[in-house]
């Protein structure tokens, strides 16, 4: 097994296992207790945990510091990094800092526009975009150099990831865009939350037709619905989200206090169905502020216990 990095996630994929990751949002406070508790809840059920980077442009504990808290708990972190808030100097600096703490995974994103967050008047940066950040991560690792061309004595060795949305617009570039991210250096992909299973499977078919599943590890994004209200909201208001009516009808068809459980059942069924789809290399379970349910989903979907790779 030839490994390019120290990443546990890379080892999981290269050992041929389906990987399982989850995601935690850091608190809006200098008290780290909350993120540490969330990490402990899911520690044994996942291979790695993503820490979001000021998600929805709301100011929080920085992703890097929160990753260090998880690392101290023995959890493998995935550093999410958005290009919205930092220029190439700060991004490379944070990559060095993260590597110095033994953080091995980075997920490269552009980030939501600041007009959604708590600082609408902020200047954004976007010196690089998500693909250029991927190129940067790979350049530092492979060439041992900064973007300036200067040498890095001990280069950071990150396992590089990116997001993909099989449901976004325009539809015609959904697969070419994945190819472009792979060309930029993506080694693993976490997809947008999947609800329209037929459309996802169609996307995977096109991904396989271009042989892209052999070039990148694609993790299917799973987010359990907590209520029919959440499903309707996601359909209506969240850009790039494809929520079919039949899913809404199914949630609406059960009693209100049973809807959360029904949402979890749906998530488990989705994972079981997607396990059979060729090219799906793992699952990224994003239970937004509902981390306590992640173990149940992962156990019921037959993804527990997690394999030992170290």
């Amino acid at each position, binding site marked *: 097994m030839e490994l390019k990095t120290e990443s546990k996630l890379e080892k999981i994929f290269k050992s041929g296992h389906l990987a399982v990751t989850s995601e935690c949002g850091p608190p809006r406070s200098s008290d780290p207790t909350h993120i540490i508790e969330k990490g402990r809840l899911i520690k044994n059920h996942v291979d790695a945990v993503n820490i979001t980077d000021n998600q929805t442009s709301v100011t929080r504990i920085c992703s890097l510091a929160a990753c260090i808290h998880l690392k101290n708990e023995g959890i493998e972190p995935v550093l999410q990094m958005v290009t*919205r808030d930092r220029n*190439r100097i700060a991004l490379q600096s944070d990559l060095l800092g993260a590597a110095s703490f033994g953080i091995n995974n980075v997920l490269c994103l*552009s*980030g*939501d*526009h600041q*007009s*959604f967050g708590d600082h609408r008047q902020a200047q*954004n940066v*976007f*010196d*690089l*975009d*998500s*693909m*250029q950040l991927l*190129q940067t991560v790979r350049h530092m690792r492979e060439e041992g150099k900064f*973007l300036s061309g200067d040498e890095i004595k001990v280069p950071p060795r990150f396992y590089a990831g990116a*997001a993909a*949305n099989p449901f*976004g*617009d*325009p539809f*015609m*570039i959904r697969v*070419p865009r994945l*190819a*472009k991210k792979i*060309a*930029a250096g993506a080694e693993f992909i976490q997809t*947008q939350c999947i609800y329209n299973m037929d459309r996802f499977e169609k996307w995977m078919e096109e991904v396989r037709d271009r042989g892209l599943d052999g070039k990148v590890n694609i993790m299917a994004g799973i987010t359990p619905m907590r209520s029919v209200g959440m499903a309707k909201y996601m359909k209506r208001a969240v*850009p*790039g989200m494809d929520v079919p009516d039949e899913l809404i009808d199914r949630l609406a068809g059960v009693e209100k206090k049973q809807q959360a459980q029904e949402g979890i059942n749906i998530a488990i069924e989705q994972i079981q169905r997607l396990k059979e789809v060729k090219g799906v290399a793992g699952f990224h379970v994003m239970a937004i502020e509902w981390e306590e349910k992640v173990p149940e989903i992962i156990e019921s979907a037959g993804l527990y216990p997690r394999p030992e790779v170290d």
Partner: protein
Amino acid sequence: MEEIWEMVRQHKNVTVFGCNTCVAVCHQGGNKEAEILASLLRMKATREELEIQFVDSGIERQCEHEFFEKAEGLLQNSEAVLSLACGIGVQFVATKYPKTPVYPALNTTFLGDVIAPGVFTEKCQGCGDCVLGATGGVCPISRCAKRVLNGPCGGSANGKCEISREVDCAWQLIIDRLDAMGKMENYEKLSSLKDWSRDRAGGPRSFKLEDF
């Protein structure tokens, strides 16, 4: 010149199109400059042994519809247009002829167009390093909320930007243009990292003609 040559050399018939107002005042893109540039390109084509017809022409303003009347026939029949207008003019021509490749002959450094009398929209940030040749004549620096060079970001929905349903997604426009021109293969080319030192990041800018 090399940069312009690389954009136009694939064509057989290019209209070198001057704009006779702002850029002419700057001695960069008027009808006279179009004539000179066309001559240089003809010489270049001869040296490279390529048969390319360079027709030079121009109008008063490439950022308002009414001035296009006298060149309508010429432009309709052009395989490609090399525009000496500012970045705004290049994008205006591109919008007017959805299936015609339009290339910038200038790196616009500092500026909106007049889409209707009294209506102005930002189309160029004067970044000093024009990418319109690669983006189908739609500028992602000024028209994408995140200035992404490899878009669209995850927030594009129904052709609109995530920040507002009133704002067009620049990358949807770019992809529509590339598709209309039959150039979708360009989409998968990774854009190089932007040199922002030619933008405001390099400090306040000025431009001086050496021999004026």
